[in-house]
């Protein structure tokens, strides 16, 4: 009976994992026998085109709208440039285990004979041993979205500058405050590079406004529910805060609900990052003051394009920058077209 239970648990877990893969149909079934271009069939696509090159795209999770959009972009680029885009994503979205799973997926990518690996590391330090293995196997690494701490590890970096994104967004908020007042900073999960970079950007902007004081700086784990509690609690000590700057939109939306519950909607400027649909809607309603469009679709697209450039032996720049844009009430309907 015990054996049966273990098998059942494994089956269920695998089902759940497959479920999480969502859009990527080939997420785990990469052909292990294919060492280079010529695959021995199995996959119809590969067999038909003969030498479709495999580009493994590893993002941080397949659940956040941001990454889903990134994968859409990568998929489109795969079709446009005629490469096989294979998604590998960690199931666990927590920082620690996310890195461990990404490291395993890197090994999988080597075994499955990928031609290039695009990776957005969950943890930019801890991923290094895994990317080293990929490099040792002679597979080029294209770094997406979050910089790997060791620049030796990747051929080129595709993404936005999170520091600049944070700076731009904070600047708009601080300008609106006319250089006076108090703010909260709501950070993402501790240790997350995006959070660290965005906060660095916030601080850079704050340095230009010496009369604005950060009265509280706390993490809400990139989560809506956590942010709502944290901000409710903080409002107890600082009910007169003028602005709350958050490291992503989910937390900004939780913050907006906490502010709403306190009856202060419109009195406190709230900003997020990423320009998720619900956040953009909230900007229209006046619940959020600003968010920032990171163009995840273009990030995914450009990353695969960069991978193809590398594989074609073209000379590549060391940074493919994807521009971000601060979204406020003024450009809320047009920011995607500009």
């Amino acid at each position, binding site marked *: 009976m015990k054996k049966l239970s273990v098998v059942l648990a494994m089956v269920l877990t695998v089902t759940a*994992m497959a479920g999480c893969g969502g859009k990527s149909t080939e997420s785990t079934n990469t052909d292990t026998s294919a060492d280079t271009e010529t695959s021995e069939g199995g996959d119809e696509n590969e067999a038909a085109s003969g030498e479709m090159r495999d580009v493994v795209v590893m993002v941080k999770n397949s659940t956040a709208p941001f990454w889903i959009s990134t994968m859409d972009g990568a998929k489109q680029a795969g079709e446009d440039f005629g490469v096989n885009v294979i998604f590998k994503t960690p199931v666990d979205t927590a920082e620690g285990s996310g890195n461990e799973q990404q490291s395993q997926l890197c090994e999988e990518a080597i075994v499955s004979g990928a031609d290039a690996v695009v990776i957005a590391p969950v943890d930019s330090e801890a991923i290094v041993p895994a990317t080293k293995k990929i490099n040792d196997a002679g597979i080029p690494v294209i770094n997406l979205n979050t910089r790997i701490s060791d620049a030796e590890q990747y051929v080129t970096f595709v993404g936005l500058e999170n520091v600049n994104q944070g700076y731009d967004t904070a600047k708009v908020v601080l300008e609106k405050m006319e250089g006076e007042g108090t703010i909260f900073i709501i950070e993402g999960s501790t240790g997350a590079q995006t959070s660290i970079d965005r906060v660095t950007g916030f601080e850079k902007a704050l340095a230009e406004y010496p009369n604005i004081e950060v009265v509280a700086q706390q993490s809400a784990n990139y*989560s809506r*529910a956590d942010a709502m509690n944290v901000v*409710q609690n903080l409002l107890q000590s600082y009910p007169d805060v003028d602005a709350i700057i958050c490291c992503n939109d989910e937390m900004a939306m939780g913050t907006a609900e906490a502010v709403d519950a306190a009856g202060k909607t419109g009195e406190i400027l709230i900003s997020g990052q990423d320009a998720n649909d619900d956040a953009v809607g909230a900007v229209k309603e006046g619940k959020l003051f600003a968010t920032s469009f990171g163009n995840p679709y273009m990030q995914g697209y450009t990353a695969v394009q960069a991978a193809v450039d590398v594989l074609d032996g073209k000379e590549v720049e060391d940074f493919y920058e994807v521009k971000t844009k601060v979204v406020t009430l003024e450009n809320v309907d047009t920011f995607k077209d500009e």
Partner: protein
Amino acid sequence: MSLKTKNRIDLISRFLILLVVILVLALLQPNAFLNASNLSQVIFQQAPFTILMAFGMSLAIISNGIDISMASNMVLSSYFSAPYFQNGQYLLGILVSLGVGVGFGLCNGILISKVKIEPFIATFSIDFVALGLAYVACDGVYIYGFPDTFRSLTNGSLIPGIPNIALFTILVFALLFFVTKCTIYGRALYTVGHNRTAAGFSGIRTDNIILSVYVINGLLASLTGILYLSRLNAADPTIKGTLTIDSIAAALIGGIAFGGGKGSVLNTVIGALVIMFIRNGMNIMGVSTNWQQAVVGFVILFSIFYERGLSILMAKFAEKKK
């Protein structure tokens, strides 16, 4: 010393932990912490979710099991029912939410009681299934913005001064307290948790009791999910957060023994409040969120030693009396 007095002493001692936590925070932050608006916010607005989930966890632990899947079940049931609530089809929304919640509860119950899979493994797997499905259904689109009528479920007050969310929690508490303490079913639940074989021999249909626990948990997950939708004004899979861990912690700190058959839902409430006050107090003091995690861990450890110490003390006391 009778079991009843023992339980009573244990409960009072848990209450003391809560008082100490409140006292320490009040001393550290006399202005921001110790005022009616902050206390009522924690007790009436933030704690109910942890309390409701911890009720389920406690029932499972009392029956000598555990339910890892509740938080994911809550996410999934809220996700599927969200579109109906958004369109004002409340009855349909409730039915869908209950269908999902109770359905998964039933799965847990059958896996554990009939197929005899370890509760941890069964609910652990169901946890993955439910959360995975929620992510598939969500596909990166958060459902946002609910009608005011629906939102008044949490932020309205039928009784002035007590938000409806707290009212729900009090009602659920009263019901569970009555069922576990004053009915034959409740007695059977404790007996099964204490010693399943003996309970079977004394004519209790142990399978059905265990099955029922997980169905009740499904119900609680579905209810919590609906209330969460109303509070956050959004359906978002990340709301699972630390609820599973928090509810286990609440049960442990409250004094629900992992061996089963011990503790009541009142213990759970105390445990949940301890955690919520620690989180609230540390937010107010501006302590990093990571410290909260560590401190909650220390409190769990402390409460385990506390329990050990307490039972040794009581045993000595009983010996002396002889």
